[in-house]
């Protein structure tokens, strides 16, 4: 009787024990999601490929610390978002440095609010989802994508968006309701009311 293929948890365990073949299989299985997360957060494929490689290295180095408190895919997803957040923060620091070295210092402002907004966009997604995301205020759509698709922390979303936590939660809540209506959910209310409501 032929050996049965290893399941995901067995592969992870083998990889944790130093099996390089298993590690390769595990990384291959996770690459698509890691790249997709990076692509959505950074907005271009080249940057996403660079940060995907960095994330894969972090996963490989840290796999022995994975204790199974979440699924391995969730853990990898989190490593990917953290890697991309680090890259966005590096970009912010580069932006700050550039600002500080400009000749004209008359309008120089040093602020913690320097935008590190992600480049999330959905022009390439399939039509039904794109039209739904385009139909609601973009800040609502972006907040929902960051929370429910990219699974970012509220604090990170606030940082990426340059807004207060309360506003983040408000946008997510309204965005969810709007998308539920547009995409076939069972929410109460109507789009116009939700769109015109005051933010916190």
């Amino acid at each position, binding site marked *: 009787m032929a050996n049965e293929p290893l399941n995901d948890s067995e592969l992870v365990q083998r990889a944790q024990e130093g099996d390089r073949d298993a590690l390769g299989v595990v990384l291959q299985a996770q690459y698509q999601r890691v*790249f997709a997360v990076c692509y959505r957060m950074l907005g271009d494929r080249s940057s996403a490929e660079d940060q*995907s490689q960095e994330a894969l290295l972090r*996963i490989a180095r840290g796999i022995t610390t994975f204790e199974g408190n979440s699924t391995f895919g969730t853990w990898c997803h989190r490593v990917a978002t953290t890697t991309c957040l680090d890259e966005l923060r590096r970009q912010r620091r580069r932006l700050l440095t550039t600002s500080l070295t400009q000749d004209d210092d008359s309008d120089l402002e040093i602020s913690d609010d320097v935008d590190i907004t992600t480049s999330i966009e959905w022009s390439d997604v399939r039509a039904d989802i794109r039209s739904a995301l385009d139909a609601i205020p973009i800040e609502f759509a972006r907040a929902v994508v960051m929370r429910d698709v990219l699974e970012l922390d509220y604090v990170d979303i606030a940082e990426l968006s340059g807004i207060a936590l309360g506003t983040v939660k408000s946008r997510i809540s309204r965005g969810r309701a709007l998308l539920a209506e547009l995409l076939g959910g069972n*929410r109460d209310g109507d789009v116009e009311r939700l769109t015109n409501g005051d933010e916190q």
Partner: protein
Amino acid sequence: MSDDNINQVAPDEGDADAVVVARLRSALLDDVAVNESTQAQAILAAIEEIDRDSSTGAVADLSSHRRTRSNSWLQIAAAVVAVAIGAGVFLRLQTGGDDSIELSIKESAVQRSQADAADAEMADDANDAVGGAVPEAESLESSVASEELMELEEEMALESEATADMAYEASALTSISREQLPEFVNELLAQRGIRTLIGSVCSINEGELLADVELDGQLVSIVRDITLTTVVAINLSTCEVIAEVTPNDE
């Protein structure tokens, strides 16, 4: 770190619609095509890097030091820190102004006494932790010569043969408040020489031990998570993670 700890903010009002979320994820994540060539290169590069780490004895192999929820963790860490301090490590962080904080890890003694077999076993564990970290320490730019580390390793081996009881003197630690923790961590990370030296010797459990401090009357270790680049403060008496900080700087 469990997913439950990721969010430290109360959830927003209104649950996500599972069907909508599934459709969004499918469109925004699952449908993203990857370049197979780039994928293969990335995987190969990661494995090669891990192999290089292994050959140089870097931090990669931490699996043998799983978290243990007992005081042995404290004693092992204390023993390792004591060795580092014994090697002449003197850590001083100081910032100016009214909000200044000062941390000193000075003389921390390794006290010896008669002990039972369990203590001897614990000493062996501590010795393993030091021995496993030595190759990495040698690869780092450090003020401590490799010969000194070898001597220390031999010394620890001798100590493990004798029965030993190690106790960590926390009295030399200066207190910081919870509010000061993020600033403290960032300051600590800015002192890269200190981080690499201490971290290289104390690469146990899930990350690098950066420093020990007294916080709210308890001995707390500041540990950097090597995977997620976060820094956590751990109450060594309970192994409880009491704070998590994402440093502003690398």
